[in-house]
């Protein structure tokens, strides 16, 4: 199960990386339209949340320490914030639908929040790998949970 935790969290990291690619695809699609970011929004609103929940689930099933499980919940929260930032950026437009300074700042935070989320996922993958390694060598679960707890 610890291996599954490593695998699922790694898949989450890969999808997060892909998400940046999809954002670029949206930004460079011509002409710009409602559907430019379809891939990015689908991944962000369906695939990533599902993988986040799977990661938490696999952490729970692998009997990871509470702290690590709590950490796996963070990407889900950040993804929710991410969707809200995108919607809010759209809300702060002028009457004709043009960008405003506030809207662009909120839009910028969308990128910052994305970077933070990736760092959190990198941390989870590392912690999951450390948690999985001693498991193969250790005999008692007690020792492994101490190692995991120190992660």
């Amino acid at each position: 199960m610890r291996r599954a935790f490593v695998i699922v969290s790694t898949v989450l990291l890969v999808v997060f990386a892909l998400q940046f690619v999809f954002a670029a695809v949206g930004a460079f699609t011509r002409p710009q339209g409602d559907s430019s970011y379809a891939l990015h929004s689908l991944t962000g609103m369906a695939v990533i949340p599902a993988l986040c929940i799977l990661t938490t689930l696999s952490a729970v099933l692998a009997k990871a320490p509470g702290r690590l499980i709590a950490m796996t919940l963070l990407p889900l929260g950040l993804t929710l914030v991410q969707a809200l930032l995108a919607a809010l950026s759209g809300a702060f437009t002028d009457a004709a639908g043009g960008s405003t300074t506030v809207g662009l700042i909120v839009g910028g935070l969308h990128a910052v929040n994305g970077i933070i989320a990736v760092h959190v996922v990198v941390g989870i993958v590392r912690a999951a790998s450390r948690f999985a390694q001693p498991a193969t060598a250790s005999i008692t679960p007690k020792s492994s949970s101490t190692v995991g707890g120190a992660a």
Partner: protein
Amino acid sequence: MSAGSLIAADLVVAVLVSAGWLGAGGAAAAGRGRVALGLGLFALLATVVRAVTVVALARAGWWFAAEKVLIAGPFAVAGVAVAAPSLVRRRAAAVPLLFAGYTSIAGLLVSLLHGYPVSVGAGLLAAAGVLAATVATWRFVGPRPSRRVFRAAVLASVAALVAGTGFAVSPGSPSGAGHAHIAPSGAGHAHIAPSGAGHAHTAPSGAGHAHTAPPASVGRGTATVVGKPARRFTLTAATATVNVNGRNVQAWTFNGQVPGPEISATVGDVIEVTLRNKDIDRGVTLHWHGYDVPNDQDGVPGVTQEAVLPGHEFVYRFRADQPGTYWYHTHSASDIGVRKGLYGVLLVHPATSEVDSDVVVPVHTLDGVVLPAPEEAAVPAGTPVRLRLINTDSTTHRYAPGGSYRVAAIDGRELRDPPTVSGTALLIPAGGRYDVVMTAPAALTVDGRLLWSAGGATAAPDGWPVLDPLTYGQSAPGPFARFDRTFTLVLDRGLDLRGLLPRYAHTVNGAADPDIPVQSVRLGDVVRFRIVNRSLVVHPWHLHGYHVLVLSRNGRPATGSPLWLDSFDVRPGEVWEVAFQADNPGMWANHCHNLPHADAGMMLHLMVSG
């Protein structure tokens, strides 16, 4: 602060509250006591700010705050009551802080997924989520509670889940009340020509559907039996490659061009338009946007007629008796259809015209290119010009006429004593039309791009104030002394689980098309609509078959010329009251003219029965 900004600000504060509590809980679980205390105090402060924003929203209108007071409010109180003692004792405990985080997240999710109307089901499901998350947290983080407390929490969570689901799916709940069955009233007389090569030259008389119209459709006197057509047009819908501003674009066209041919007539004419479909697989119809025709000519597929499929045709016939600027477009697969080019201009000229030069500017974005192409017109100085500004896109455009001008008409209805203005921009909603009268030299900029000029130029129109039609022109006493029916439409977003796939729909009163109940009135009723925008985006509202008189916006009565509109922008946080006399019988579409929004559920119907 406008109610629209308040809605956005409240959302931001709600996110900060949740992030604060969850961050504090996480820090406490990680043994970072001081960080946890700091974040907890931040969350507490943000909760106080949230109380202020919610009260301000409630003052702007109960629709904006209902679920925040009735569901998120008690949740927040419970969260603070549980978390605050640990803050006061300066000993951060993970579970109480996380519980506060779950309550604030749950409140936020209720607002985002099913905010209006307040539903017991949503509240119970949220409570189930909070309890389940708390139980799971107890299981893995911090000291475990006594077995009894633990079991009670699990039990309460399951009970809330079952009850919440019950309320959510029971037929009595507002979201479960789908009984909209809309039969095409015109199905019996849709004029379908034999398919194949024959349709090209065997133009049917078109009289068939006019004579077999049910009695309900014979609304406006002689409107349906309109007499001998004086102006005949044939529109053939087909895919084609069109050249726009030097670029080839794959478009859907009427007669191979974008926009389609201009249909113009003079008051007193009878217009007959034969619509043929060559190869638009999703079907086409013609809707006369803003032109109030009898119901069976309105062109709404599945409601007033069947969509015209490839190889078929339909004949529209109506009297030109409403002078003004209008446009036509397909209402079948309308989002993609209009966007790809199935639209054109409809003009009805008065018997006598006061201006020499008449310029039509139907703004459209075709595959990223703005139409029409910029034009330099040769108009002698001193000549009056009537610029007919049309917005055929799904979003608002900003028109800046350079020079002094007056807005003679909006949505095809003349304004009363419009004053001359200059250095003022016009915001025309999706589907809306403004007739602007200027004297050459003159110019027109749309969204900062010079689209038309006659020896004039516009200097830096970016900072211009925007004309508010509600305070423009001379007022006149309103025609309505009483209202027989009042409907409130609350526009929002919400989770729609009634289709095959769940979707984040654009909703009206918490429901999405086709599950929004039909609103019924009797012929002759004076009907008032109150339209409330709870969402974060603009919704250009468009009722078919009628022009509506604007009564008030945000509680302030319209003080300018009587405004009879068919398309008006309801911005976030705005409340519009409009009224009309239901004198045009039939089943009328009533929807957001941001067509992707209409596709995503923001469409309902008004039944006017005799």
